[in-house]
């Protein structure tokens, strides 16, 4: 009576065993993965920590590498104009030239107009007088050392060298140009160490009313990469055909040179750091896998196939790698943002384009570093490992 009953479970067990040989039970596979992590919390945590740090450092440097160029472009804009518009054959620019420049820049840069004449003081001393827009010049030429910016009409900014000649006690003085005289109140002095020191700067309105001369030069500091700047130059040349648009080669080439070298050095540093991080992951995982050789031996002794073992350890490594990479990525973005704030006083934009690279890189490195010790272990007899050799 009992025979058929007792047969059934053994048949079931045989069937289950047969099905397990063909396809490992997913829940068992998962359980082994989870238990391994729980039972060796310390080891798993330290391996994960190494992964997180490696991924964080890699993310930080990659993010900085991508973003630093944009940051340094901004620093170089403090050098002032990189594009200059001049009326052809020393003529004045059309009246709408500045508004064309502003609409072309669309907020990505600053432009300032300049109009110049040579006037004479009451003693007959010739002096260059420039009409400009003080608010724009202030943004464009940040290196100007100005004691006090003019605010009211007829106030002028006097170059330090001109100041000692025409207005040594900053008293008001007269300037004559083509028979017309203008009384000027010095508001402050400007010092740059260059031609500006010998000039007198007036507001454009005062200047035009007095001399009748319109701006002949617009200096433009356009933001962005060299490609963007040359695109801006092309647009400007099309929008204002009466102007000769030229790059300020001194600034443009110096910038390209410094940025190029900085970027190459940063690339070398990034490569070194990525290499070190990979090395860190490699030695951590080799430790992790060789630490589990007994598990490996038991599984092998219980009949696990080579494929299953490879899959199991590879899955473990991949999960470790992916988790480490994700957490490290978030930490790395935080660190990059902090460096941006501390060093460049501006946020480093998180580059999510870096994430796939970091993720894929981590998983590839973890898989590689897991496979290396496994292939070493596979040659060893389980009995030898279990005996403790």
């Amino acid at each position: 009576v009992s025979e058929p009953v007792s047969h059934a479970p053994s048949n079931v067990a045989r069937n289950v065993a047969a099905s397990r040989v063909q396809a490992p039970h997913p829940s068992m596979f998962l359980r082994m993965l989870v238990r391994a992590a729980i039972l060796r919390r310390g080891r798993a945590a330290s391996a994960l920590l190494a992964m997180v740090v490696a991924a964080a450092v890699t993310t930080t440097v990659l993010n900085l590498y991508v973003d630093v160029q944009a940051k340094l472009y901004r620093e170089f804009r403090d050098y002032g104009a990189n594009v200059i518009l001049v009326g052809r054959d020393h003529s004045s620019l059309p009246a709408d030239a500045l508004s064309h420049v502003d609409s072309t820049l669309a907020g990505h840069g600053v432009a300032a107009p300049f109009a110049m004449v040579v006037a004479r003081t009451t003693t007959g001393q010739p002096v260059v007088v420039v009409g400009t827009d003080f608010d724009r010049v202030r943004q464009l030429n940040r290196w100007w050392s100005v004691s006090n910016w003019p605010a009211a009409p007829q106030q002028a900014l006097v170059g330090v060298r001109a100041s000692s000649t025409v207005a040594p006690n900053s008293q008001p003085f007269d300037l004559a140009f083509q028979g017309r005289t203008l009384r000027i109140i010095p508001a402050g002095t400007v010092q740059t160490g260059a031609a500006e020191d010998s000039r007198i700067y007036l507001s454009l309105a005062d200047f035009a009313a007095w001399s009748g001369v319109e701006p002949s030069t617009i200096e433009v500091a356009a933001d962005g990469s060299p490609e963007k700047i040359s695109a801006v130059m092309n647009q400007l040349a099309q929008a204002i055909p009466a102007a000769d648009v030229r790059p300020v080669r001194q600034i443009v080439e110096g910038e390209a040179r410094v940025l190029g070298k900085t970027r190459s050095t940063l690339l070398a540093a990034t490569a070194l750091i990525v290499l070190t991080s990979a090395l860190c992951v490699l030695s951590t995982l080799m430790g992790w896998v060789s630490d589990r050789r007994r598990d490996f031996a038991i599984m092998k002794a219980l009949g696990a196939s080579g494929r299953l073992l490879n899959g199991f350890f590879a899955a473990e490594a991949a999960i470790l790698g992916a988790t480490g990479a994700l957490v490290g990525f978030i930490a790395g973005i935080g660190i990059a943002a902090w460096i941006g704030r501390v060093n460049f006083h501006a946020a480093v934009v998180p580059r999510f384009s870096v994430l796939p690279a970091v993720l894929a890189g981590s998983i590839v490195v973890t898989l590689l570093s897991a496979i290396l010790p496994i292939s070493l272990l596979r040659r060893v007899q389980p009995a030898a490992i279990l005996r403790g050799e």
Partner: protein
Amino acid sequence: MFARLVYESFRRQKRRKVLAGVAITLGVTVATAMIAVATDIGDKINRELRAIGANLVITPQEDSLDVEIGGVNLKPPSDGAFLNEADLPKIKEIFWHNNVTGFAPVLPVTVSIEVNGRGRQDATLVGTYFAKHIPLGKEEFVTGVRSTYPWWKISGSWPADDSRDVLVGERLAARMDLKPGEQLAVSDRQLRVSGILSTGGVEDDQMVASLALAQEILGKPGAVRRIYVSALTKPEDAFARRDPKSMSGAVYDRWYCSPYPQSIAFQLVEAIPHSHAEQIRQVSQNEGAVLSRIEGLFFLITLAALFASALAVSAAMATAIFERRAEVGLMKALGAGQIAVAAVFFGEATLLALASGLAGFAAGAVLARQIGQSIFNSQISIQPILLPVILGIAVIVTFAGSAVAIRRAVSLDPVFALRGAQ
């Protein structure tokens, strides 16, 4: 016994020791190279920034105002004061003479030019040095616009400093329809155009010739209007801006011996009689900002690299020790105390760290040199003081990496360790 244990451990476990050693070597290599690059990057970028042009200008003390619009000088040519060309070599004799990378004197002269009867025209001719050889004791210093203004482009060839050839700015050349090799009459002298100059600045409307030629046309031998000096400077700070006259002895010495733009300008005034030196703010103010950003960036990147390599070394050491639990069990079973066991491991770690640290330092020095050569075309030098520092760091990091693993290995019950249990 201790020495023998350590020796045998290295002899018998070559593979493991090599693996850990390689990790330490690579970590130290990266650390050395990064520290060398980070300490030298400021100087390298400073030199690159010199490509933006001179950062100091020397003018005569009693100079009249410059009257110049768009490269055309409207000041009467002989008006105002001049500097003396004979004083120029003194620029390379100031306290910070090694920081002076180049200088170029200029002497603008207004001339009338004529090409084969194509009409006369007034233009400014600037006399300067192109690549002048200036004897300084036994050595020679080569300086001039070719090194101070690297963005100047020539189609044709550069004139020699002792020739009577001229460069013509590209817009002036276009107006006069001039090509390299042609002759032109400059203030009744027949001169040859050796090249067309393109700078993107006011020089495009001017002519450039040797200083001697400009002095001859002006009729003032030895006269120089201005001297542009390119010097490596330290970013200016509040201390730099203080007035040297109000400083006490020690403070003044510290100010004088710092390569601030102000202190170099001060020394230039001391060297050149009747002169006034000033920083060109567009160049000198901004290079400080760029320089400190790049230096700061590399400082932080180096921290990241040090951190990563320390971690790599620690991980390698921890792995190496975890594999040797059975050994610890055996030693303890034979009666070794915890301190004795730990001493063996720490002894091994020190030996490994020192040997690999030395190898890594050498490799890092080579790597830094390679980076310097390939990116900056100049060597990145490694200070010898770095060696003990790097070795110290290597030993500390190796210790730190081993400490946790050793503690765990030592505290393990020998029975479990020998049986192979966790």
